[in-house]
C-alpha cells in the first residue's frame, strides 16, 4: 500500500461502517485525526462555566492516548460531560470525542472503579431509567405529579438520591398509546399537559391504512410526559397521507448511556431494533421527534449487533427532516392556514449533532403568518438528566444562562412570545430558567393544518 493512497474521508467512511466494535482497537474514534486545535473545548458549554472540567480535548483525545498507555484519568471529572455533543459538532477533524468519553465511563463501570458513592449510583440508576420512572408516573399521573410537587418529597429525593429539589422535573401525563389514535371520530378533545397549558386536539380520520407507512419512535418524553405532542406528530404525519406504526418500543437508551448503564442501553437498542427490523426491511422510514432518540438511532444503533443495525442509520429521520424531504419532493401538503405567531427557536444540542441544520425552522417558515428567529445561544444545560442531579443543578442553570437571558430579553421586547424547540428536556429547562413558555414546533404545523388549536400559540 502506498502511503499517499491514504485518503481521509474514504478511510473514515470505511471506518464507520466496518469498525463498529471498539474492542477491535481500530481507530474508529478518529483519535489520529485530532490536530489539538482546542476548538472543541472552546465551544464546550460545561468547560465554559466549570473550571474543574478540563474540557473535551483533554478528557477526549488527549486522555485517550494516555489511556492506550494504561494511564487513566480521574474518574470523577468525566461525569461533568453532559454528552451534549457540541464538541463533536465543532471538531474540524471528526474526532468522536463523546464516544471516547462514554467508552471510558463504560470501562470504568465494568471495572467497578467508577462506582462513586452508592447513593449516586442509585440516583443515576433511577434517572437512567426514564422509562421505569415514566411507567410508574403514568400509572397514576395526578398522584405522581402531586407527590413530586410536594416540597418534602423533593427534599427527600435530594437527600436520599441526590436529585435536586429545585430542578424542573417534568410532569407526568397520560401515557402515549397508539390505540389513542385509532378511533376515527371527528370530535375535539383536550389533552392535558399540566394545569397551565392544554392543547386542543381533533381526532381525524386520516389514519386509514395507507400505502405510505412510517414507523414512529416517540421516545420517553412523549410516552410518559407529553403524549399530546405525540398525538400531534401522528396527526401531522397522517395528514400527509402516512400510516403511522408505533410498536412497543423501550427507551432508546440515551439516558441509560448518559448515566453509565451501558449494558442496559445495548439491550434496549437490541429490543427496539428487533421491533423495527420487519419495517426496516420493507424500506419503511423511522421517524423520531425527540432529537436525542433520533441521534441514538442514527449514530449508536448502527454499532449494536442486531439485525436491522445496518439499515437503521440510513432509514431514520428526524420528524422535520422527514417533512423537509417531503417538501423537496413536492409531497408535503401545504394546505396551511395562517398562524399569527412569533417564535424564537432553540436548536437542541442533539439536533445539531445530527448535522441536518434546523429543518423545523425551514418548515415553519413555509406557513403564512409564522415569524421565527433562531436564538443560537448554546446549550440549555439540562442535557437529559444532568441538570436534575443535585450537585449539577446550579451548573446546569449556569450553562443555560446565556440562552435564558436571550429569551427573557426577547420576550420583554416582544420580539417573540414563546420558544419553539423539539426537545422536551430543553422545553422544561427553558421554562424553568427563563419563565417563558415553550412548545414543540409540531404544534404550529398542527394548527396550520387545521387539526386543532394550540394554547401556547393562541
Amino acid at each position, binding site marked *: *500500500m*502506498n*502511503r*499517499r*493512497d*491514504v485518503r*481521509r474521508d474514504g*478511510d473514515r467512511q470505511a471506518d464507520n461502517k466496518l469498525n463498529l466494535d471498539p*474492542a*477491535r*482497537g*481500530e*481507530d474508529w474514534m478518529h*483519535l*489520529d*485525526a*485530532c*490536530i*489539538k*486545535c*482546542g476548538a472543541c473545548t472552546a465551544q464546550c458549554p460545561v468547560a465554559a462555566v466549570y473550571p474543574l472540567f*478540563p474540557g473535551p*480535548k*483533554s478528557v477526549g483525545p*488527549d*486522555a*485517550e*492516548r*494516555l489511556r*492506550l*498507555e*494504561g*494511564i*487513566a*484519568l*480521574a474518574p470523577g*471529572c468525566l461525569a461533568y460531560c453532559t454528552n451534549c455533543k457540541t464538541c463533536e459538532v465543532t471538531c474540524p*477533524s471528526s474526532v468522536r470525542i463523546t464516544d471516547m468519553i462514554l467508552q471510558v465511563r463504560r470501562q470504568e463501570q465494568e471495572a467497578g472503579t467508577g462506582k462513586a458513592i452508592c447513593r449516586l449510583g442509585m440516583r443515576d440508576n433511577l434517572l437512567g431509567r426514564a422509562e421505569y420512572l415514566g411507567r410508574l408516573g403514568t400509572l397514576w399521573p395526578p398522584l405522581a405529579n402531586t407527590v413530586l410537587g410536594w416540597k418534602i418529597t423533593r427534599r427527600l429525593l435530594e437527600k436520599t438520591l441526590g436529585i435536586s429539589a429545585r430542578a424542573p422535573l417534568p410532569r407526568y401525563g397520560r401515557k402515549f398509546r397508539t390505540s389513542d389514535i385509532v378511533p376515527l371520530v371527528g370530535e375535539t378533545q383536550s389533552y392535558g399537559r399540566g394545569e397551565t397549558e392544554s392543547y386542543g386536539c381533533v381526532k381525524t380520520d386520516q389514519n386509514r391504512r395507507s400505502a405510505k407507512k412510517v414507523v414512529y419512535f416517540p421516545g420517553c418524553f412523549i410516552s410518559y410526559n407529553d403524549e399530546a405532542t405525540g398525538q400531534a406528530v401522528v396527526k401531522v404525519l397522517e395528514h400527509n397521507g402516512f400510516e403511522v406504526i408505533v410498536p412497543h418500543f423501550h427507551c432508546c437508551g440515551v439516558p441509560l448511556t448518559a448515566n453509565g448503564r451501558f449494558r442496559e442501553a445495548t439491550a434496549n437498542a437490541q429490543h427496539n431494533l428487533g421491533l423495527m427490523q420487519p419495517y426496516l426491511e420493507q424500506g419503511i422510514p423511522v421517524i423520531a421527534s425527540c432529537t436525542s432518540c433520533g441521534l441514538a438511532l442514527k449514530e449508536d444503533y448502527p454499532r449494536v449487533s442486531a439485525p436491522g443495525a445496518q439499515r437503521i442509520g440510513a432509514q431514520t429521520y428526524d420528524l422535520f427532516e422527514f417533512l423537509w424531504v417531503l417538501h423537496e419532493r413536492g409531497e408535503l401538503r401545504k394546505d396551511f392556514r395562517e398562524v399569527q405567531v412569533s417564535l424564537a427557536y432553540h436548536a437542541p444540542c442533539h439536533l445539531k449533532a445530527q448535522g441536518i441544520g434546523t429543518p423545523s425552522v425551514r418548515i415553519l417558515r413555509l406557513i403564512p403568518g409564522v415569524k421565527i428567529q433562531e436564538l443560537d445561544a448554546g446549550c440549555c444545560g439540562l442535557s437529559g438528566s444532568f441538570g436534575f442531579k443535585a450537585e449539577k443543578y446550579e451548573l446546569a442553570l449556569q450553562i443555560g444562562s446565556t440562552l435564558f437571558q436571550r429569551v427573557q430579553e426577547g420576550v420583554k421586547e416582544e420580539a417573540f412570545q414563546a420558544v419553539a424547540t423539539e426537545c422536551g428536556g430543553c422545553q422544561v429547562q427553558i421554562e424553568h430558567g427563563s419563565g417563558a413558555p415553550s412548545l414543540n414546533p409540531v404544534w404550529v404545523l398542527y394548527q396550520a393544518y387545521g387539526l386543532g388549536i394550540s394554547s401556547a400559540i393562541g
Partner: protein
Amino acid sequence: MGQGLEKGSVRYSVQVVIIGGGATGVGILRDLSLRGISALLIEQGDLAHGTSSRFHGLLHSGARYAVKDPISAAECIQENAILKRIAPNCLVSTGGWFVQMPGDETDYVEAWLQGCQEANIPVREIPVQEALEQEPLLAKDVLRVFEVPDAAVDGFKLVWDNAKSARRHGGRYLTYHRVNEVLRDGERVAGVQGENLLTGEPFTVESLMVVNATGAWADRVAATAGASLDVVCDKGVLLAFNRRLFQRVINRLRSPGDGDIFVPHETITIFGTTSERVDTPLDHQPTDREVQRLLDVGETLLPGIAGKRLIRAFAGVRPLHREDRELTGASGEGEGREVSRTFALIDHEVEEGIKGFLSVVGGKFTTYRLMAEKASDWVAGKLGETAPCRTAEEPLLPALSERLRRKALALLPCAAAEKMLERLGQEAVAVLETIREDPGKGQLLCECEMVTVAEVEKAVADPDAHHLADVRRKTRLGMGTCQGAFCTYRALPLMWREGEKYDPLGRELIRFLNQRWKGIRPILWGEQLRETEFTRAIYAGLLDLQDKGTTTE
C-alpha cells in the same frame, strides 16, 4: 571546579577524563565514581544528544541475537535483568513477542528456540488466537508467537539518572563542551583541551587517563591523539506513530533485518529500523525512500500501517567498529584488547604505544553498563585501584515514595500526576511544592504529554538546560501529537524570565521549530500534514516568522 590559570582558559584537574555523554560515557562516569576514582565527563551537546537518544529504545532480551550472535544474546539477557533491578524508573517491562509470518524461514524458528535456550532467555509460546485478542492490530495471518522479556527503555532518562547518581558520588560532567584535542605528554596522554560551546571559552583538563566514549565520533577523537580507529557510521531510521499501536514490543521472528521491530514508548510507538553507511555521525536526516521502505516492510506485521498517523521520522547513527565486525566469530583477538564480539575496548598503548588512552566502541544501549564495567575495570587496573564494580547492585535512584505519589494525585489530574512522576521521580517534590503554592502553575502547558507549567518552569531553570531542545528532552514537551505547535510559544515566556540564559529567544524558537520540522518533513502527509499546516499558520501567520525561519542546526 578548577580555576582558570591562563587568561581565557579554564583548567580542570582529575584522575580520568571521559569524552562523550552517551550511555557508555555516563555509565563509565558512574562506575568510576562509585569506585571512588575522580572522573570528569565532557560532552559537546546535552547529555544523550547523540545515538543514545536517537535509538529504538528496546531493552533487548537478547532473543534477537539468539541465532547469529550467542554471546550478545547472553550479555543482553544478563543486562536486561540487571537494569530491570537497578533502573526500574527508566524502563517499562512491556514484554516482547517474536512473531513468525507466512514466508519467514521455517527452520529459523527451531534454531532460534535452541539459541534462546542456550543463552538462558525464557521463551513462552502464546496461542495465536490469544495473541490476536491481546494485540488486535497484529496481522491476522501470523503463524506463531513467542513471548520474551523485552522491555522499553527511556534512553534519555537512563543517561541522566546515571549522571545524577554519579554526581552524588562525586562524579562531574560538563555539557556543551567539545574536546578538540587529546593532549599528549610523550608516550602518555596528559588530558584534553577544547571549547565551551556556550561561551566560546577554551578549557583544559589535566588527567592521568582519557577514555574515549564518543560512539560514532570515536575515530575522530582518537585521531587527535595520533591514534587510529576504524569506525563505520551506520544510519538507522525510525518512525514514531501518534499512539500506542501495540502494548508490547513486537519483533519479527526471522533473521534480523529492516523494519521488523515495534516498540511502545509512553504514548507513542516507534518502528524501525534501517541500515545504511553514512560518512558522518551528523548525517541523521531520514530520507523519503527510507521511510517508504519501512512502511512497505511494516505492512506485513501491521496491515494498514500507512494509514496510521506518523508524527515524525528520525535517525541515529550506530558506531560499528570495523575490525570487530570483520572478525565476527573470533574472540579475544590480540593482546591488550578485550573483545567481546559485541563491543571493543581498544587500549591504544597496545595498538600504537599511547599510554593511558582507551577507546570504547560499538555495543548496544542494552549493554552500556557491561561496557562501562569493563572499561572501568581497565582504568582501575591501570590506576592500581582495587574497589570492585558496584553498578550491577546499586540502584540508580531511590524508589519513589508512596507519600509523594499521593501528594501528586491530590494536586494534579491523575494522568498528569502519573506522567510527571514517571519523568521526574523524587524530583517531583519541588514541582508539587510550586503547584501547591500557586495552583495556576498546575495548568498544562503541553497538553499532549500533560506537562504542567510548574514542571516546564523547573526544566527551564535547570542549570543543565541551555536550549529549548534540552527542555524538550527533559519534559517531552513538543514530542506528542502536535509536535510543538502549542507548547513552543507557551514555553517562551518562561524562558524569557530566565533572562540572558536563553537569549535571543527568537533564535531559540526558530531553531526548535526547525528541529521539529526536520522530523516531520519526511512524513508529511495525512493528518500530520494538517497539523503542520496548522502549525505553519500559527508561527508563519500569527507570529510572522516566515522569512527568518532559515536558521538550521
